[in-house]
């Protein structure tokens, strides 16, 4: 029983391993289908058994000087609550129906929710680690001390008390972003009475204490491989907010296209664009030719500015985007960033480099290399088209600086993603300007030598990021696949691990903060077959992750508590090879919702329900059975908000909770049937 009276669930633990082969579940259908099916599940909650009606005059009580972001947010949630005719297809369990006291419905109205934010004026900037906690109570005023302390005794006490006029709704949060999460939870609690359309909240009194397990909870979208319209991106932000995600990782530029519209840069204009006069020395570089010096040169805060030549940066999109319609303007980007931040979501840009850079070549062929098409692309790149930035050409850095000067200020977040995945040394080894320079400098043409070249590039790139006030995030390769001094020396670089749990461990043990998101679990694009034109039997390089599989991933697997602190969180990643506006929603949702809950409150309950540990081998077990009904409901809730989330089960199963579980994990029903 999950939602039984004063059941307190403390969702703190994460459990790993999809294939819990040793675990048996009870074949009995569980009491399920709860109106207050909040997704992601709050960290702590206790609920009673009375239904209260929400007044049609209901409003959110905000402080006079509340931040506009909160004022607008509250208006948005009020609209959502009162415009929605969503009725969950997941029925209440019989026990819940029986226990529910509806005698006060229509008599006692919830007139308001008082929203009390400590940081009223919104001083705290949205960023990594900002307090996102909230406490929500619908209960008697006198029962609530200032902290809404939550214990079994209080839960028991308030549930027994008769109704009266002191019954009220209060939401407390440290920041407006915590308050927005609380409002989302509140909106999910309000249900439509299917008979008369009135709004109700069941299972009151209730107390919720909620805060995320991880501060970085992201979704990655890739707008280079296929174009995604602004409408698709906005819709994704809406859906992310419903799942309490707080980072939109925008993989905006990659090899296939360069969709950001930039302005041409006239000589001497660079500083203007950069917005900060970081006062670096000027490195005098030639406009053309190989920059042979940079690898060894000691450069502290050098900045290429005054000597910048004219750079026709507008050509990057003009020639590198799929069409002049398939682009993002600066205005579109800044509006979008504001929209996301209004919903508590940070936007972190990634302009991938020095690999994955074919798209730059259309405007600046001289700064790119190994643009060979079919069939040689396969020597230089994991997938077509091949093309990397040329690390020994000075103009490469001028263009990067020019791009960063214009792109980075559009994103208000303190982090920027530097890419750096899948750098292919065959490519540079086949580039005469690179190898010539290496020969002259007696750098061996082996991995060690190329690491040196990559180190030079990375050092310079990260300097630019830092000068723009950004803390770099990189993919795992610069740390784990290469030996780069600049990574080793800068422990504040955040490493995004996309492969295995093993690599998460390696990364945190070297002292880095890590963002997780294993390809085996949280790559939402996997499993749809290889897309090369002639490869009839080609399979995806990575398998499809069902929601159950995504839910079973534990970012902290095998880490001790000290190491766990280095895990900032994770991301659900949807790469763009086979994704565009037509299928974005159904590829992402509701599977990314499974990721959202793991990152918000974990995938297991401390207090075992008894459903999962029949053999008592694990104290903490996946709460996947209980999660199913909630995610089913959440899928329909998202659909009601125009997110085309896909179904997880036949509708019969959704409507008959507990009837479609797998009986015994290591036996197939087909076998049993024989």
């Amino acid at each position, binding site marked *: 029983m999950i939602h039984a009276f004063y059941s307190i669930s403390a969702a703190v633990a994460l459990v790993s391993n999809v294939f819990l082969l040793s675990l048996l579940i009870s*074949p009995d259908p569980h009491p399920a289908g709860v109106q207050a099916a909040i997704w992601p599940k709050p960290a702590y909650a206790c609920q009673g058994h009375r239904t209260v009606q929400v007044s049609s005059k209901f409003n959110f009580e905000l402080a006079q000087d509340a931040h506009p972001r909160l004022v607008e947010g509250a208006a948005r949630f009020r609209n959502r609550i009162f415009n929605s005719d969503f009725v969950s297809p997941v029925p209440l369990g019989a026990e819940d129906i029986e226990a529910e006291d509806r005698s006060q419905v229509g008599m006692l109205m919830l007139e308001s929710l008082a929203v009390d934010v400590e940081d009223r004026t919104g001083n705290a900037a949205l960023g990594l680690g900002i307090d996102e906690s909230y406490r929500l109570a619908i209960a008697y005023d006198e029962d609530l001390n200032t902290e809404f302390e939550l214990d079994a005794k209080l839960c028991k006490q308030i549930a027994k008390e008769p109704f009266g006029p002191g019954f009220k709704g209060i939401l407390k949060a440290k920041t407006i972003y915590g308050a927005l999460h609380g409002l989302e939870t509140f909106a999910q609690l309000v249900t439509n009475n299917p008979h008369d359309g009135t709004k109700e909240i069941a299972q009151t009194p209730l107390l919720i204490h909620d805060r995320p397990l991880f501060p970085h909870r992201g979704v990655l979208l890739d707008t280079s491989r296929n174009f995604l319209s602004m409408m698709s991106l906005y819709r994704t932000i809406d859906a992310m907010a419903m799942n309490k995600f707080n980072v939109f990782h925008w993989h905006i530029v990659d090899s296939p296209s360069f969709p950001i519209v930039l302005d041409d840069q006239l000589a001497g204009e660079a500083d203007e664009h950069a917005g900060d006069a970081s006062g670096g020395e000027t490195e005098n570089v030639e406009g053309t030719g190989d920059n042979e010096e940079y690898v060894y040169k000691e450069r502290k805060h050098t900045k290429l500015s005054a000597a910048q030549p004219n750079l026709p940066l507008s050509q990057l999109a003009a020639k590198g985007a799929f069409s002049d319609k398939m682009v993002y303007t600066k205005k579109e980007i800044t509006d979008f960033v504001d929209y996301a931040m209004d919903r508590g979501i940070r936007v972190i840009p990634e302009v991938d480099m020095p690999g994955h850079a074919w798209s730059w070549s259309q405007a600046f062929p001289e700064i790119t290399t190994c643009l060979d098409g*079919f069939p040689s692309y396969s020597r230089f790149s994991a997938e077509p088209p091949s093309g990397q930035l040329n690390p020994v050409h000075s103009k490469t850095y001028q263009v990067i600086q020019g791009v960063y000067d214009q792109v980075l200020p559009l994103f208000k977040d303190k982090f920027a993603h530097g890419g750096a995945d899948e750098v292919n040394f065959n490519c540079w080894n086949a580039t005469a300007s690179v190898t010539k320079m290496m020969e002259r400098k007696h750098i061996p043409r082996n991995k060690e030598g190329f690491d040196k070249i990559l180190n030079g590039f990375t050092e310079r790139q990260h300097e630019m990021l830092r000068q723009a006030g950004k803390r770099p995030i990189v993919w795992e390769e610069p740390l784990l696949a290469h030996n780069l001094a600049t990574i080793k020396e800068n422990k504040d670089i955040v490493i995004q691990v996309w492969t295995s749990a093993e690599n998460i461990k390696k990364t945190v043990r070297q002292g880095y903060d890590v963002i997780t998101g294993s390809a085996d679990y949280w790559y939402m694009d996997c499993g749809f*077959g*290889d897309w090369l034109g002639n490869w009839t039997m*080609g399979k995806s390089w990575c398998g499809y992750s069902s929601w159950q599989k995504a839910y079973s991933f534990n970012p902290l697997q095998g880490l001790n508590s000290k190491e766990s602190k280095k895990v900032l969180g994770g991301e659900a990643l949807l790469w763009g*090879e086979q994704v565009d506006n037509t299928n974005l929603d159904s590829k992402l949702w509701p599977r990314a919702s499974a990721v959202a809950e793991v990152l918000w409150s974990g995938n297991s309950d401390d207090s075992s329900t008894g459903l999962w540990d029949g053999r008592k081998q694990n104290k903490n077990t996946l709460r*996947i*059975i209980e999660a199913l009904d909630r995610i089913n409901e959440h899928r329909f809730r998202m659909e009601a908000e125009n997110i085309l989330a896909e179904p997880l089960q036949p509708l019969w199963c959704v409507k008959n909770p507990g009837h479609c579980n797998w009986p015994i994990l290591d036996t197939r029903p087909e076998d049993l049937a024989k």
Partner: protein
Amino acid sequence: MHAGLSLSLCVAAVALTTVTAQAPSAEAYSSSLPIQKIQGIPAVNPVSQPWIWPLPQNWERGSNTLKVSKSIRFEGKGARQPIVSKAIKRYQNLMFKKEDYPMIPYNWSTTDNTPSRSSLSTVVIDIKTNDDHLDMDTDESYTLTVPVSGKAVIQAETVYGVLHGLETLSQLVQYYPERKSYYIPNTPWKISDFPQYKHRGILLDTSRHYYTVQEIEKLIDTLSWNKLNVFHWHMLDSTSFPYVSKKYPELAAHGAYTPRHVYTAKDIKQIVQFAKERGVRVIPEMEAPGHSTSWGYGIPEIASCLNAQPYFGYTVQPPAGQLNIAHPKTKEVVFGLIDEWAELFPDSFFHAAGDEVVMKCWENDTYITNHLQKTNQTLMQLFENFVLDMEDHVRQKNKTVMVWQEMLLEYHFNLPKDTVIQVWVGSDGVKEVTSKGYKTIVSAQNFWYLDLGFGRPRSNPYPEVQGAGFNHWNRVYSYDMRANLTKAEADLILGAEATMWGELADPNNVEDRLWPRAAAFAERLWSGYENPKGEELISADAIYRLLPWREQLVLRGVRAGPLNQGFCTRNPGDCFQPPNPAK
């Protein structure tokens, strides 16, 4: 992207030598694999195949460019035929649905850059017969000529051939964004076209998830654009009973998800008529006696092991429930529904199902065991009699009976030779069925199930199921149904159906699931494996046409997913698997 790992793995897994297809000998289609593992670099110059999907059997083209008038006159007696005149209205719109900013701009280098003075302003439609009867043997062939003079002619035996001709004509029209004008490049055109397989279908499951009439109609529209001609309506299953029977309204009243999740006789008539006007046959499937839980909510006595808990052992997937094959009421209800459907669905095919029956369900039903004792027969005899009676009842309505393969291959029932067996378990079944001399419709799940690859619709985590993988478009396209068959056996293949079972699909994602993969399937069925000159059709050529066809489907409002990333959409030739990829 992060595919670095994959390359080496995949390289190891796949033989890299290009397999040359063997021309079919008179004796046998002897390829031992039903599919070539990797196909070579396009044998054909990409621009040498026209942008027509599916590819016509015979086509010739010139190098003139004909402007297209926005107000084309359709002439001839054929143009006034009611089905044709409605189609003309549709195509006057579809013909001009083109993209201002196409991902795949048309390659105008193959055609004269200065359009001819005349323009396409007249299309003459000539139909040989007035009969608009639609069936498996309906002649769907057509010829289409577009001379430089601009007076196009579509000639066909039946209206249904004309519909295909109109579709082809609409695909010849290309938009020139810079000139904001429409042209038919490469006139004169001479196309003479016909399908290689008569039965080209999609199965949609409307029991596990419901689709509105409009959503079904949109699917049928999309079928017709792909020259598919069968909508196999898997309307009933264990999960819900959406059919509102005149005689037994209690079935839907209790078995449908909600009173809104139903199909009335009026809905069905509307869908059948809609489909007929698009040359699509609607074949209903009466799922029985397995997968029948939903019947039992309305009429409990006709069900066995109704929603038995725990379900496992009683059914291959929840909920449990089969028809009680011993109860006299069961046959009465089944026959009654067949009577109703025989009228509502005029097609001469009727699918009587018979798949995935679980014996334990009946063995634990005392009504049935008592009946067996009383009548002194075995369960299998009872089962066979029930099935054969049901099929006989269908035959009495002058219908051809279609069943799933288990009836023949697993239960070995004594099926009349005119029964059409639908193969689904795997591609091997095609040989088994045809070697026994039965006609077959192929839905091999390892190639043509389009709903697979997304895990189990159960809550618990569970290891991946072997063989239940995602069939991507290339695999769909490249499957050869004739593998290992003799010529005589191959001649028993009436056609095929790609399936969209409903566990994990509903209106939110069904179009992405189906298209463009079902289009790849459609071309294989229509165009066949070789053209009349004996040249093999391969996916490495097809990709050049499938990419713009997918874009066309999107423009026509279908949420067809992308085949690849945009660079490859633009440059298909740069995105092949190299014959010798580097390590």
